[in-house]
């Protein structure tokens, strides 16, 4: 089985349908008699709705119905995580109605839904809706929102504060700072990003008035959670009346985790109009309605002794929530961010304070990496600043502070316990790949050509496989974070796997099948992976936070264990042996020490045709497992970027980008590398191109289309050099030893690049994105047209 089992770069089985145009994305689905929804959205960042008149619009050609907030008085979209203030009180949690109630709070807030026979008719009619807005002062930036006289987004959130949260031992940190040899300081911005999955969000709501059943087709990373949130909290429908299908989904990167208003609106309205309702976002609509990412302002201080050992870290962050709390918004800048601030280092004491702030902008939530890129960026930037302050090599100062392989399990001062790791190993591999020692020569050579060359490295760690339910529960999560799997062995030995994980590009249909084929010793063609449909799968928590293989994959292994255990009972009966003597290997149940054996097919057939069968055993061969992980998994790695800047234009060219990762055990190296490439592109995008900007005065989104929001294109990126650690450290607490790889690139790349650019320019810091204009201005300011230093 070596060619298709664990560790083989099996080519993806899902590709055939995507490559021939036979994918089944939500907008490809058409239901008989369907009508189309168009959302009328607020053009104002903040306003009171004085009047909303739909009379004229409702008479427009093709219009079936129009609903406003006055019609749709359902529950609000819930926030999944309760964060406590430092004083123990609860965070401010304003309501989040699917259709605006009296006020709009960001450009794009939906005020009405028009349902018509065609998309264009719905859009035309929306123009006839008469809304009288009374514009109110708006605030979009973090710095402005916390000013004493700032406009207030919510009456119940004084000073626009959602929460004021802290982690770590402040007194110990202050004491360490008082004794420090040196303190490095930095102010930095983590720029707001738009996830921009290539498939715009879409939803189809359908209602069967005979059975009372609802179906929602939606572009979601976690259909079961949507069913739970929408059913229980927004529409108050029992789960069994609701089926949520997330078929092929064209990328998510976090933006399709959340429950969105449009899903609730089309489902709620379907019985009212008596026809299926389809809504598909236009791209410019996605820009003002998909949850956005990042958006932090941070002050960080690192205390060091005279040898460059880290003594203490102090972090103060303002995090933008936007106008409403999206599903996971509150946990991103707290439990997914501050708990990673130890990074890969032995810093003994850490204190972090995070203030979450409301503004009149699109809600912010998890985007690829979620909290961990923000933590890595600030940590790896301040470490470089410290190296610069103390005149040490950035690689040396890191090496001196690494947690050593002998120190695991390692308890950080910010709650997490890392199980394994070998950070020096990935650093060594990356430095060798890029020929770190030879850099000085290359820099000299570049200077001769009038170019400024820089090198920068970043060491990252991430907490993946989210997460032990008991732990997240104690931290305010209103959900558990397990995963489910069901293995159905059919009578003739083929296998269907029903997984609660959801694939939107990660290749589960291949990777999961590899695990099953390997463990059961059957050809991969015999294995079918089913996902994305609450009507077929018992339960699931979905795909995000690199949890599919670590949590979903483990649930599959647990279910397979049960299948094999039952198989042994049947085999023992058939071969008249003791159950304890049956060994299962390479698809065969054998009696130890004999040549007697039965294949999986013999066993499955017996299970379904139980003429000769153990007395007390149930027929059938189908097992279910729910797996709640014992801990997070902790992938880590080292990325190094080498850049050349043209001082005349400020254009930065990435000459090389090398990545060395430790993902523990790897199921499919080809797919893992692909995941790294994608993450790197998004990390490089953040560092060099992407920036979601709002106009300070009007609150308008300035980067609201692909013409204004700059995403990496093929010509902006280099080819990547990706290697796995030569001393991988498998996860110790899941049976596969896997850690997860989906976010690594986006976590490590921004810091590596910004370190390289700062190094080239010979400056302490430059905020992202390092656009040619920003770099050119920096060069002008430095009055350094020649190479730095």
């Amino acid at each position: 089985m070596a060619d298709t089992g664990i560790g083989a770069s099996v080519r993806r089985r899902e590709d055939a349908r995507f490559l021939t145009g036979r994918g089944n994305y939500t907008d490809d689905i058409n239901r008989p008699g369907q009508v189309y929804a168009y959302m009328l959205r607020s053009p104002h960042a903040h306003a009171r709705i004085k009047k909303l008149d739909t009379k004229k619009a409702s008479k427009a050609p093709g219009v079936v119905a129009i609903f406003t907030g006055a019609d749709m008085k359902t529950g609000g979209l819930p926030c999944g995580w309760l964060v406590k203030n430092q004083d123990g009180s609860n965070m401010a949690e304003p309501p989040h109605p699917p259709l605006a109630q009296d006020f709009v709070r960001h450009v794009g807030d939906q005020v009405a839904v028009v349902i018509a026979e065609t998309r264009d008719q719905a859009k035309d009619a929306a123009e006839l809706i008469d809304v009288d807005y009374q514009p109110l002062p708006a605030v979009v930036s973090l710095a402005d929102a916390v000013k004493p006289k700032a406009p207030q987004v919510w009456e119940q959130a004084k000073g626009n504060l959602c929460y004021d949260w802290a982690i770590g031992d402040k007194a110990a940190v202050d004491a360490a700072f008082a004794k420090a040899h040196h303190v490095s300081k930095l102010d930095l911005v983590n720029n707001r990003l738009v996830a921009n999955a290539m498939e715009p969000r879409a939803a189809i709501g359908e209602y069967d008035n005979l059975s009372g059943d609802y179906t929602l087709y939606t572009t979601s990373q976690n259909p079961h959670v949507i069913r739970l949130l929408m059913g229980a909290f927004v529409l108050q429908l029992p789960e069994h009346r609701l089926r949520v299908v997330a078929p092929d989904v064209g990328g998510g990167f976090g933006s399709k985790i959340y429950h969105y208003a449009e899903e609730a609106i089309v489902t709620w309205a379907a019985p009212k109009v008596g026809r299926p309702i389809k809504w598909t976002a236009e791209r410019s609509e996605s820009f003002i309605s998909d949850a956005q990412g990042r958006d932090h302002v941070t002050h960080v201080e690192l205390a060091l002794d005279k040898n460059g050992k880290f003594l203490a870290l102090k972090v103060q962050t303002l995090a933008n929530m936007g106008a409403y709390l999206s599903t996971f918004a509150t946990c991103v800048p707290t439990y997914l961010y501050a708990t990673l601030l130890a990074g890969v280092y032995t810093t003994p004491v850490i204190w972090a304070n995070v203030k979450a702030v409301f503004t009149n902008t699109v809600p912010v939530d998890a985007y690829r990496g979620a909290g961990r890129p923000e933590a890595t960026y600030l940590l790896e930037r301040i470490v470089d600043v410290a190296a610069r302050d103390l005149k040490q090599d950035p690689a040396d100062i890191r090496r001196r502070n690494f947690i050593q392989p002998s120190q695991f399990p390692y308890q950080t001062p910010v709650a997490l316990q890392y199980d394994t790791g070998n950070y020096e190993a990935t650093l060594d591999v990356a430095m060798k790949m890029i020929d770190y020692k030879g850099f000085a020569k290359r820099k000299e050579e570049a200077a001769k050509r009038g170019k400024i060359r820089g090198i920068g490295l970043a060491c990252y760690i991430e907490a993946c496989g989210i997460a032990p339910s008991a732990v997240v529960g104690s931290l305010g999560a209103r959900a558990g974070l397990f995963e489910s799997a069901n293995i159905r062995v059919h009578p003739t030995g083929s296998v269907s796997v029903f997984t609660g994980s959801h694939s939107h590009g990660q290749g589960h249909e291949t990777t999961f099948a590899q695990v099953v084929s390997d463990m059961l010793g059957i050809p991969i063609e015999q294995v079918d992976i089913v996902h994305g449909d609450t009507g077929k799968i018992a339960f699931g928590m979905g795909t995000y936070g690199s949890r599919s293989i670590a949590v979903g994959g483990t649930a599959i292994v647990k279910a397979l264990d049960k299948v094999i255990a039952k198989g042994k009972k049947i085999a023992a009966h058939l071969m008249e042996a003791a159950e304890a003597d049956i060994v299962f290997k390479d698809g065969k149940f054998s009696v130890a020490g004999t040549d007697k054996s039965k294949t999986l097919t013999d066993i499955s057939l017996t299970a379904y045709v139980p003429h000769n069968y153990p007395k007390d055993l149930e027929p059938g061969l189908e097992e279910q497992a729910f797996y709640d992980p014992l801990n997070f998994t902790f992938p880590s790695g080292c990325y190094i970027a080498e850049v050349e800047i043209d001082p005349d234009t400020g254009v930065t060219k990435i000459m090389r980008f090398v990545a060395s990762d430790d993902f523990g055990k790897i199921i499919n190296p080809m797919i893992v590398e692909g995941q790294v490439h994608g993450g790197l592109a998004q990390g490089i995008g953040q560092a060099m191109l992407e920036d979601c900007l709002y106009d300070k005065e009007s609150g308008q989104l300035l980067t609201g289309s692909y013409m204004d929001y700059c995403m990496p294109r093929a010509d902006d990126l280099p080819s990547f050099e990706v290697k796995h650690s030569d001393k991988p450290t498998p996860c110790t607490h899941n049976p596969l030893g896997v850690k997860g790889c989906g976010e690594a690139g986006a976590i490590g790349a921004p810091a590596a690049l910004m370190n390289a650019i700062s190094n080239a320019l010979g400056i302490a810091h430059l905020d992202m994105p390092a656009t040619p204009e920003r770099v050119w201005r920096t060069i002008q300011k430095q009055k350094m047209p020649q190479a730095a230093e």
Partner: protein
Amino acid sequence: MASINVAMTVNGKAASGTVEARTLLVQFLREKLGLTGTHVGCDTSQCGACVVHVNGKSVKSCTILAAQADGAKIITIEGLAKNGELHPMQAAFKEHHGLQCGFCTPGMVMSAVDLVQNNKNPSEQEVREWLEGNICRCTGYHNIVKAIQAGAKAMGR
């Protein structure tokens, strides 16, 4: 809204219909002909998810009206594979893992085939420049570039 009759050859078969004057070619393909392989990723003609061949050349089908394609020969992603065999470019994308979510993929493949029709053996830089009009958010382009170079070789064979 004025209606217009259009007729064209799509993937070798005659196709016709009545459309509004404003109907885009991509809407006609997806909504009237049910050829949903051609995707819509933006509303500003920036992403290339909708690329098809019109009279042998790659065109963003969201930038032209169905009426403008009247009488044209159109090939969409559904028309690329022949007799159940993947086109060499499709096969190269699979072999080199040039896709993840698959949403940009039909546009990428159609663009790539047109590139190779013009340039039999494109360099990495030429491929990257040609893809200026196609956005992929998943792959970082690394494997797409590899796939297209391999696909070009295979098409030459």
